[in-house]
């Protein structure tokens, strides 16, 4: 389903030095519905890899193929549309939009994918993450755990083929961490989405059937 091939990415150095290589992934594949934990230290390029897979960062070379589409070769507008429709992203710092209610945060994700399932679908998703009663609450009125559950609902609103989660539990306590991970794994399984979670936390990684170290796939490390 997801396959990376000869992926190369380097950042330009400010002082005229040769560019700093960040990613060099000869090959990596994730099957449909597979749930993978990718473990690496801070600054090892985990987030960058997720951003490349999501089409937020364009690689210097190589393929990022989701089913038949090479995301790296799409122009920016198509990449944005493709991301909205097929890739769900759960952020490290939750990143709910403060001006919008929980329901509207979920609906916004649907808007960019031209998903016309409507408010009922968004409410249904909030019910699945246990926040049906808090649908009209603003992020500031929700706890960190509740906010991340809204973030999960938002990421999965368009039934993506692939869900990416960047340290999704780093802002949560242990009890909320387990609840959020359970929920994410359960919902991804329900819709058949592949799930890639990057983390530095071994306890998080142990909950996944497949665990990889970034260095296993990235030759830069």
């Amino acid at each position, binding site marked *: 389903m997801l396959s990376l091939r000869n992926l190369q990415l380097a950042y330009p150095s400010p002082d005229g030095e040769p560019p700093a290589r960040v990613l060099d992934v000869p090959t990596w594949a994730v099957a449909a519905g597979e749930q993978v934990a990718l473990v690496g230290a801070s600054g090892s390029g985990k*987030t960058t890899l997720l*951003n490349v897979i999501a089409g937020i960062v364009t690689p210097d070379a190589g393929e990022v193929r989701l089913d038949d589409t090479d995301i790296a070769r799409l122009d920016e507008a198509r990449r*944005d549309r493709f991301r909205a429709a097929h890739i769900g992203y759960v952020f490290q710092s939750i990143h709910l939009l403060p001006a919008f209610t929980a329901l509207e945060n979920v609906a916004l994700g649907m808007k960019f994918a031209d998903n016309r399932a409507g408010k009922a679908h968004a409410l249904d998703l909030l019910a699945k993450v246990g926040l049906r009663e808090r649908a009209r609450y603003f992020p500031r009125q929700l706890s960190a755990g509740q906010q991340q559950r809204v973030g999960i609902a938002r990421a999965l609103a368009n039934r993506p083929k692939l869900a990416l989660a960047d340290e999704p539990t780093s802002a949560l306590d242990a009890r909320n961490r387990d609840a959020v991970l359970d929920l994410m794994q359960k919902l991804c399984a329900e819709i058949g989405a592949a799930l890639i979670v990057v983390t530095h936390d071994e306890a998080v990684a142990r909950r996944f059937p497949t665990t990889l170290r970034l260095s296993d796939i990235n030759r830069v490390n």
Partner: protein
Amino acid sequence: MQTLTVIYRNLRQRWLSTCLTALSIALGVALATAITALRQQAQASFANVAASYELVVGAKGSPLQLVLNTVFHLDAPVGNIPYAYYRKLKADDRVAYAVPLALGDNYRGFRLVGTEPEYFSLVKLKDGQPVAVAQGRPFAADYEAVVGSLVAREAKLGLGQTFVARHGVEDTVAAEEHEDAPFTVVGVLRETGTPLDRVIFISLGSVDEIHHDNARAGQQSQSLLDQLNALGAEPETPAKPDAQDDDRGHRHGRGHSHKPPSAAPPEAPTAPPASPAQPAAPAREIAEVTAVIVKLRSPGYLFLMQREINKGKDAQAALPGVEVQKLFAIVGTVDRALLLVSLLVVAVAAASVLVAIYNSLAERRREIAVLRALGARRRTIFAWLLWEAAATAALGGLVGVLLGHALLATAGTTLKFLSGLPLSPWTWTRLEVGPGWLTGYVPFEAAVVFGTLLLGAAMGLAPAALAYRTNVARYLSE
């Protein structure tokens, strides 16, 4: 979710900044709206009133002052013309009617104007109807008065009530009261929406009576001998008229026998007198009048007659419509300066839209990055920022237009009291600048709101371009 909801939510999130920015625009727009609407309505009101009068004849001097004083009952009179001149005009074959006016004193700031009773039937206003007495009857004797509708309302002068005039056309504490000469209200004019609503009409004879008394009092104070002489003197003793005296030119006519008024005692409302105690003004020998309103039998005589009168040494003839145009040409300079100031206020305020959105951008970069990560396209973010700027400015425009009309409503009450000219504060204002297809169909208010919307969008361009270039990966990781 609708784009409008997104815009609304984003503006509400920063409501204080949004409100302050919109308010600063609103103040400039309110000023521009109030100035434009006030000028247009005042000009229309003045032109409407002026259109009711064909030709005004008065003493040599400023024609604008003559028109302001005769038609709008503002300003001081230019001077007086001989009563005989009025008779000459009236006898002219080309004249359909000629009605004399003599500026008298005031009651609580409302001017007393002497005229003939035929004024109420002959002079027709813009609506084609005569001035007309709505309650009671026209005056038929000296010391009877017909009051304008605003006078009746504001001064609470009903039929049969009496009042004492003060000397001069301005209501000042120092002004002398004609305590021995109270007037009785015998009629109330219909509401005309013109300066006539704030005028008290009396007979020409009444004007002569009270001022002959003044003149005589002045003479009495000169010497004891004069006072003693005056004791036995007949009131017919001529009192030399003084056209430009310290009463700002209001009439001091030749003497008439000054008799106590026939009305009931002051302060006691009484029924209107069944019959006049003294003969009406035309029976008297009047020395001077302030002005004459002239209606010609044919418009073709208008300029001919104006030239004839102006060539002579005794009087001048003025065309009220022309003088009003001149007045607004003068006023227009001030008006344009004020309008320019208000436009500058709007421009400065519009720059604050740019500042407000630019400042908010620093804290919104991460939000923008999140939106982009969720699949929002660059142009979507760009458009949202533009709409936010435009909506903030348009909100200011809308509030400003309403505020401007509210200002007009407040000013309108005072203006109506001072000039008798009504304002309609909640009517559309005409758009004066632009091509015909636009000015013909789009009111000023709609153009202003749309203009502020465009201005806001223009101000939002720079911040929107910055948002457009947001580095998603960088701000997601912050």
